[in-house]
Structure formats: structure tokens, C-alpha cells
């Protein structure tokens, strides 16, 4: 017996998403998701807005695609421009771009785990039983008590209302610890944004990013301002974030077996380690694909976007250099296009980056860290393709990136040029491939008579929350939802856990 289950809107992600599912009931009475559709619900048409503008505008306009990961759009645009202009970054410029992008990664990962995902696992009402001495928790309890006492119908907002199911963490101690971390993480993610602004001018939406580098020089005062904040963030990641993810994994072990998607993973590579631009440039986290366990190098020519089930009347099966974006609101079921690599749907994001780095040549240090953590958790590597595998990958990556930031600071030439002059060509084309916190991000730009002739963005959540393609093959999140057990279809908390493990960003995905 099948029935329909709709989660609309899917909140605690970035942007506008609805999830429509068909639920089947097994003979023992349990509900499972039989099929799912991810419906992207907000369109702005940024690619069309870019056409006919000055190419330099692109790194400002594309940052506005997303207020959670603007830096990665700025970087993708800068990379595409550097290629089109035929210029390279300065030594400082490259490192400063890395530091700004890395800071925003740390900000985004902390925000995602605590403020977007954790409320699916933590029992916030456990605060009412709190009797310890943590000042924040005591005040949280007092706050809720005051609101209840005054008869406030929205006592505890925005943490309530929520799905009232018996599926939150059972242990008071775990709930209290995670609530304390939630509050602490709010402060730490603000500090991570300060760190990004030290060289990025302001966040969200940095004005400092430019082709060849940034506008802010690395003075000793700036480097200290960054490093002092990095220390705090690193301590938080190691002392709080990693233990909290481990605790969540131990409290919800079933989620090693829920949320499995295709075994197709794609990474464009991120954080340049050489003062150059283009595919051969070595990156800290490497580019590549892993399909059914086999690593291969990246070939951007294999990327296509399909629109058969999307709200666009433009041609389907186009490489981004030839792509078009013509809206047709009555057509298809989602505002996302369906990107495919060699015709296949690909999962992107921290899990993909970790698995690609694990399988890539030179990935010894990645293998060592991943194997050690999985061994301590008693989980085989095959189970990384799961809700918990995605959360763990994000946390592991945060450790690596924070450590690398510390080294990058030492590699800066104090007071050295953060950028260099360049000129704009009459015609040209370039692509910028990088990784946003939530996955592979590409910008493709064609310059015609000093202006942008064509601009196409293929964004992480475009890959992950992709609708079905022209062959009817579901996107990775749609696939990951299939088979998810649902205890109560009226309050399907399990579906939200699966979707959020991908950290969707819909404003990005559709743009």
C-alpha cells in the first residue's frame, strides 16, 4: 500500500526545498520511502543577470548567489577570470584566498552540524531537567521556564515547535552537552567569520577577493588577528566538534545504514598549493572521481546539465560552456537543472572530498586519519556512504583545514603584494573549479567584446538535490531517501536527517 508524504518546506537548510515522497508499508507494518522527489522552489536567474556586464562584476554578483558560501563563488569566479585574463595569482594572493575560503568552510561546517542538523537529534526539552552549574544551560532553562510561566504560546521558539517524536537522544547528559555545544558553536562560527574578514574585508560577501589575490595585504597585525582566532576555532573543533560528532554517531548507530546514495563521488579539488590556475594546479584536497570504489582523474569535459524534468525550456544535455538558462515555470518539477558526469549522477560534498582524497595518489595521510577514526568507532569504511559518514567527513575535514591554515600563515610573505595588476581582454573564456563547503562548484565564463557573453554555474546542491534527468534517473538525495524507514509519516524526522546530511543550499543550487 503506497501513500504520499510531503515535507514542505524542508527547513534548517539554506533556501527553499520541498520533498515529496511515496511511502510503502512493509508486511510488518513499517513505513519506508519508496521514491522521492526534491523540489527546488526559488529562482532568481543570476546567470542571465550576469550577461552583458563587466567580467570583474562577476566575483561580486556570484557571491550573492549564496550568503552561506559566498567565498567559494567568489573564488570560482576569480579562477575563471584568471584563466580568461591569462594571469596567475601572487604567492600571497593565493594563500590569502585559501585562508578566507578555509575560514568560511570552518564557519559553514560548524553552523551545519550544530545549528542546522543537530536539532534532529538533540532533545531540547531536556533543558527543563537541567540541574548542573553551566551558566548558559541554567539561563536557557530559566528562559524557557519564564516563557512557559507567562503562558507564551511560542515558549522555546525557535527550538520549538518541532516534530514531537520519541526519537531524540535519550540521555540527559548527552542532550545537555550538545545544547551547551550549540550555544558555544554560535559564538565560534561568528569568530570564524571574523577570521575570514581579517583578509576578506567583510562576511558574508567579501569585497576583498579579486583576480590574482585579495586587496588586503598580510601585515603582521592582520596575521596575528587571524592566528589568535584560528587557535580558538582549532581548539573547539578538536575538543568539542569531533567529540560531539562521535557522540552522535554512538547514540544513533542506525544512521550508518541510512541515507546511502550512489557510489559515485566527485571532487574538483580545493585550496591551491601552487601559484597557477587551471586543471593541473595542485590543490590541498585533491580533484578526482570515485565511481564504484575506483579512483580516476577529473575530466570537466564529461560534465553536462539536463533539464528534461526541470523548469527550463533551454536545451538539455549541454556542457556549461554551451549552457543556457531560460525559465519555464509550468514545466518539470524543480528549479534545479540535473548535472551529470559521464551521464551519471554524482554525490559531491565533504564525503566525496574525503573518499576521493582517500583513493587518490598521495592520500596516505587521509587514509591514516580516516582508518583510525573508523576503527575507534568500530565501523567499516563501506558505511561512510550514509548520514553519519557525511557528518564525520565534515568534521574530519574541519580538523585538516584548520591545521593547514596554521601552516599557510607561516608561508605568507609579511607585507608582500596581495594581488597584482592585470588587464581585461576583449575576448576570452575560462572556467573556475573549486569546492564550496557543500561540494563541487564550477563557474564557466565567456567574454565577448569586454563583456560577459555567457556565464554558467554548476553548484554543489545542483548535483546533490538534482531532479531526475532526461532518462528518469533520480538525483543523489532522491536516491539516498529511497528505503529510509519512517516511523510516523505525519512527522517524518528521519527524512530530514537524510536530506540535511548533504547540507543542501538551494539558493546556490538554482541561482
Amino acid at each position, binding site marked *: 500500500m503506497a501513500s504520499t508524504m510531503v515535507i*514542505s*518546506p524542508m*527547513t*534548517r537548510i*539554506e533556501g527553499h526545498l520541498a520533498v515529496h515522497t511515496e511511502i510503502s508499508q512493509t508486511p510488518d507494518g513499517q513505513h519506508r520511502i519508496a521514491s522521492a522527489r526534491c523540489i527546488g522552489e*526559488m*529562482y*532568481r*536567474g543570476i546567470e542571465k*543577470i550576469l550577461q*552583458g*556586464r*563587466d567580467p*570583474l*562584476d562577476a566575483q*561580486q554578483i556570484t557571491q*550573492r548567489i549564496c*550568503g*552561506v558560501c559566498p567565498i567559494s563563488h567568489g573564488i570560482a569566479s576569480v579562477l575563471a577570470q584568471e584563466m580568461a585574463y591569462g594571469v596567475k595569482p601572487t604567492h600571497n*594572493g593565493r594563500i590569502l584566498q585559501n585562508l578566507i575560503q578555509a575560514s568560511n568552510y570552518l564557519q559553514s561546517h560548524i553552523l551545519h552540524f550544530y*545549528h542546522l542538523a543537530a536539532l534532529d537529534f538533540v532533545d*531540547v526539552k531536556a533543558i*527543563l531537567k537541567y540541574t548542573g552549574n553551566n551558566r548558559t544551560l541554567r539561563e*536557557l532553562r530559566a*528562559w524557557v521556564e519564564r*516563557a512557559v*510561566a*507567562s*503562558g507564551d*504560546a*511560542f*515558549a522555546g521558539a*525557535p*527550538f*520549538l*515547535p518541532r*516534530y*514531537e517524536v520519541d526519537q531524540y537522544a535519550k540521555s540527559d547528559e548527552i542532550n545537555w552537552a550538545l545544547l551547551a555545544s550549540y550555544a558555544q558553536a*554560535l559564538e565560534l562560527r*561568528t569568530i570564524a567569520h571574523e577570521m575570514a*574578514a581579517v*583578509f576578506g*574585508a*567583510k562576511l*558574508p560577501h567579501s*569585497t576583498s577577493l*579579486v583576480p590574482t589575490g585579495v*586587496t*588586503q*595585504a598580510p601585515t603582521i597585525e592582520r596575521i596575528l588577528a587571524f592566528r589568535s582566532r584560528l587557535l580558538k576555532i582549532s581548539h573547539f573543533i578538536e575538543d568539542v566538534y569531533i567529540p560531539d560528532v562521535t557522540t552522535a554517531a554512538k547514540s544513533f548507530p542506525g544512521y550508518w545504514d541510512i541515507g546511502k546514495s550512489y557510489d559515485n563521488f566527485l571532487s574538483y579539488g580545493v585550496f591551491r598549493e601552487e601559484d597557477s590556475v587551471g586543471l593541473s594546479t595542485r590543490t590541498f584536497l585533491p580533484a578526482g572521481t570515485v565511481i564504484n570504489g575506483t579512483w580516476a582523474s577529473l575530466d570537466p569535459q564529461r560534465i553536462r546539465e539536463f533539464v528534461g524534468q526541470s*523548469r527550463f525550456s533551454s536545451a538539455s544535455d549541454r556542457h556549461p560552456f554551451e549552457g543556457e538558462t531560460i*525559465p519555464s515555470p*509550468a514545466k518539470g518539477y524543480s528549479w534545479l537543472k540535473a548535472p551529470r558526469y559521464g551521464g551519471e549522477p554524482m554525490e559531491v560534498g565533504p564525503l566525496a572530498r574525503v573518499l576521493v582524497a582517500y583513493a587518490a595518489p598521495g592520500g596516505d595521510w587521509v587514509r591514516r586519519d580516516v582508518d583510525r577514526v573508523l576503527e575507534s568507532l568500530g565501523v567499516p569504511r563501506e558505511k561512510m556512504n550514509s548520514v553519519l559518514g557525511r557528518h564525520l567527513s565534515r568534521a574530519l575535514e574541519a580538523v585538516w583545514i584548520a591545521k593547514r591554515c596554521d601552516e599557510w600563515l607561516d608561508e605568507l610573505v609579511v607585507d608582500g*603584494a596581495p594581488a597584482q595588476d592585470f588587464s*581585461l581582454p576583449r575576448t576570452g573564456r575560462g572556467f573556475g573549479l573549486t569546492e564550496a563547503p557543500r561540494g563541487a562548484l564550477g563557474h564557466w565564463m565567456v567574454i565577448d*567584446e*569586454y563583456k560577459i557573453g555567457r556565464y554558467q554555474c554548476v553548484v554543489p546542491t545542483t548535483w546533490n538535490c538534482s531532479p531526475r534527468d532526461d532518462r528518469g534517473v533520480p538525483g543523489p538525495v532522491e536516491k539516498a531517501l529511497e528505503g529510509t524507514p519512517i516511523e510516523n509519516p*505525519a512527522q*517524518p524526522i528521519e527524512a530530514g536527517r537524510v536530506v540535511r546530511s548533504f547540507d543542501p543550499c538551494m*539558493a546556490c543550487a538554482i541561482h
Partner: protein
Amino acid sequence: MTQDVRFTRRELMKLGGLLAVGASLPARTAKVFADGAQKLLTTTRIVWIQAQSCTGDSVSLLNSVDPDPVDLLTRFISLVAHQTIGAAQGQTFMDALDKAREQGEYILVIEGSIPLDMPEACVIGDSTVESLLVRLIPRAKAVVAVGTCAAFGGLPAAEGNQTGAGSVSQLMTRHQLPIQGRLINCPSCPTHPKCLIGTLAYVAAKGYPQVDPELLTPTTFYGHSTHDECPRYHYYERKIFAKYLGDQHGCLFELGCLGPISYTECPHRQWNTGVNWCIRASAPCIGCSSPHFGKRKDFPFYRKGEHQHAVAYTEQDRKGGRP
């Protein structure tokens, strides 16, 4: 499918003696601490709706330090609906919105532009954002358009856009909803947390603030020229100009700086707890608080390539006067 958003009876009983005290309080007590310097501490309800937005203003809200986000959420405002931060999802979220609407007395914060020519381009639950907002606005005691998109249309409303994106003010005009004394614009991309929270606190405690009659921006936060108060103004006076993007010295005007047409507190308040801001970082102001922000294709943010292609803007466009 409606869920009870209140605590269960059993949970209430656990609160023990506190309830006895609480029973003597008036229902829905708004002010928690209503005395002296703490007069702004309220539990004013905020309903926050994201339209054609990038969530940047929501992220900027979380970058607040005075108050920090925990204090903000637990002492200053009651954030009864927020798509990114709130626990509620699916029907629970829509039910909470309905309930807030029934009870009224909230400040409605709108982030992002509204697709006035293509309503399907922004949908929340089973409703276009336009029809949802038209239901929510009349019950609000004030409407705050946060960020340049909500305030003025912003980049989604730029030349050549396909959705007919417009501002909250255009939406209210279209549906004949009264604007005067109700709508407040808090632009810049994103909004500065101090401007937003300061505005919310003022509205909660004192009512409608003094605003620019045309732009509806609170004069406290948007009354000063960025250019006039720029720390590099002395360079401008002496005609010493930065030569390329990344040049650490000189006025940034010849690189395209739009400080002269911008009215913000950036030179004083700076960004991200005051660690930096655009011009301090040698980055030209791109005019992100302006009603004209990014609107024209022939008015680039930077002047780098202007000698290479025809530009329709005039020097006066960049030097401004009040827009």
C-alpha cells in the same frame, strides 16, 4: 496534522513551584525586564520570511555580538518562525506561521526580493511567497525589509532579470497595503547586524523610528555619507589615488569606489565585530546599501576596464549627491 507547540502537561508539572509564581503574571507578558537601562529587553515576536534571498542577512544576524546570538534569541526577541534557524519543518512550520498570524503583534522581517512577474519563482509550503506575505503583512505591527534585495529589489531585480523581482515596498504598493509608519528598510548586502537589531529593538521599545522619507531607512543607521567619513578622505582631498586593486595606499575612487553614493555607518561600525571593512581592506565600496546597487549592466562595480568599452554612466553617477 497540527502539532501542539506547547509543553505537555507532564513537562509543565515538572516546573513545580515556578508555575505558582507564573500564575500571577499576566498572559503573554511581553517585557521580561522592563526597567531602567534594560528597557529594550523584550520578547517581541519576530516572524522571519525568506523570499528570493541568499540567506546572507540571516547569517549576518548570527554575526551579532552585542547582543550575541544566544542572548539575542533568548532575551531580546522571540523568533517564532525562521526557515534556516528554527526547529519546525514541513507542516509544523506552516502551522506555526498560521498560529503567529492569528495572534498578530509580531514584527515581520522579510529577507530577499519578491518575484512580482513570476510568482512560481518563490514558493514556501503550498503558497507563493507573494500570497504568503500578503496574508502576513496586515497582521504585523511593523514590517522590516532586511537587506538590499528586500529593501530595494537588489541584484535579483537587476537589469535583464527574468522574474520581475521587486522590493517589499513594491509588493505592498501592488496590494494596497499601507506603508507609511509600518515599513522600515534595512539595506546593505548583507545588512549589518547592528542596524537590524538596533532597528528591531527600537521598534519593540519605542515604535516606528525616524526614517529617510524616500528610502524608509532609519536615519540613526543610514544617515551618514560613507565618503564624507571615510578614513581615506585625506587622500581624496590631495588627489592621491590607488592605482590597481590591491594597492594599499590612496583613495579608491578611481578604482570605482562608490562611497560617495553610499549612506552607511561602515567607517565607524566596520564589519564582523569591527575586525575590518571594505575600504580599510583596500577594497572599493561597491555601494551595496544603495537603491541602485548592481542594477545597471553599464555601471560596473570597478572602473578597471572602463576605457575599453562604452560606459553610459557619468562621473556624477559615481560622485552622487543623494541618490
